[in-house]
């Protein structure tokens, strides 16, 4: 055993290293979430957490499940491609609880010009008006145009 006479200090260092590595492995196993690396260098559970965010816009399919009469009128008019919540706003809460959560009343004076006020950057074929010339008396738009089927003189009037 004379060959190993002076190795005690080496063994001590080796022991310190071994404990250190064991500690690192143990702490790492506790701290790194189990789903880390499931799909790549990130926490796999983050995907499900982001997907669990609540929905605010119900989607037109949800609206049409109850308001099929409006969907019918709209599908034949110029606004067929305009989804309900484009004008009515986000209404998932109303869809979840139609009894207590009522959609807010809309102001056509603000809503219609948002899309239809003339603007040089809008596509030329998009119907645009100068509100001050088109409606100098500030008659509400819906007095003449039914918003769900806005062309005048069509059978789809209210």
């Amino acid at each position, binding site marked *: 055993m004379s060959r190993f006479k002076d190795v005690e200090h080496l063994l001590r260092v080796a022991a310190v290293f071994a404990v250190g590595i064991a500690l690192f492995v143990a702490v790492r196993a506790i701290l790194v*979430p*189990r*789903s*880390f690396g499931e*799909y*790549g*260098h*990130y*926490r796999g*559970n*983050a*995907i*499900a*957490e*982001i*997907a*669990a*965010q*609540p*929905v*605010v*816009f119900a*989607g*037109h399919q949800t609206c049409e499940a109850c308001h099929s009469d409006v969907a019918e009128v709209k599908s034949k008019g110029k*606004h067929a*491609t*305009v*989804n309900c*919540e*484009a*004008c009515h*706003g*986000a209404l998932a809460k109303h869809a979840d609880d139609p009894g207590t959560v009522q959609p807010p009343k809309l102001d056509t004076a603000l809503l219609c010009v*948002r*899309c239809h*006020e*003339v*603007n*040089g*950057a*809008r*596509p030329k074929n*998009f119907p645009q008006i100068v509100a001050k010339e088109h409606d100098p008396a500030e008659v509400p738009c819906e007095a003449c145009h039914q918003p769900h089927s806005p062309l005048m003189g069509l059978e789809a009037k209210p």
Partner: protein
Amino acid sequence: MNFTRRQMLMLLPAAAIAWESVMAGTPEASPNYAMTDHWWGMLIDISKCIGCGNCVRACATENNVPDGYFRTWVERYHVSDDNLVSPVVDSPNGGKDGFPPRLESGGKDFFVPKMCNHCADSPCTQVCPVGATFITPDGVVLVDKKYCIGCRYCIQACPYGCRFLNPKTQTAEKCTLCYHRITKGLTTACCEACPTGARQLADLKNPKDPIHEFLRTHNVQVLKPYLATGAKLFYNDLDGSVR
């Protein structure tokens, strides 16, 4: 608090189970959704955009985006007749309140909605030092806000300027392509609110998606193709002056 040995012994397994659930995270939110069946992108048709700002407002409502920050925004370009390479771009409040009419005449004007390009080889995910931002197996670039340390590397790395630091949480934030909606079979909030269909969510792995026919029959571009980011935000009728 004084625990007897018996109480302590009963408490320990309960704590262990609670810790286990913390480590496991939240359960899968959409059990019928298979990530491997999808590869998401979006189509933006410039010739249909009317600059109403519906998408910007819808995004802010759906995702609780703080005021003055944008996950999507609309830019208005003005390209004069004699200078095709230096367009004048404005985007008042991200286009949230619409655009006042431009007074000078001449040249051409058009709107360009912008948002995260959900790049297949994204620079932003490559620079994250902690694995807080990543691309999902279905092609959506997301941020894990529990892991984000707010170092802003990704914000600088994005060539499209699509990220910002949330002033409240101090973590990087960006468009999630409404991941919570598309995994439930809904379209994104911006697409839902777009009145002209200028925005269309596209599933490139779905052979029945109209995007394939559209890409074949139209002149579609991505932004900054020379960066080879693999951008999946397809622009139809995009003017060459758009950066």
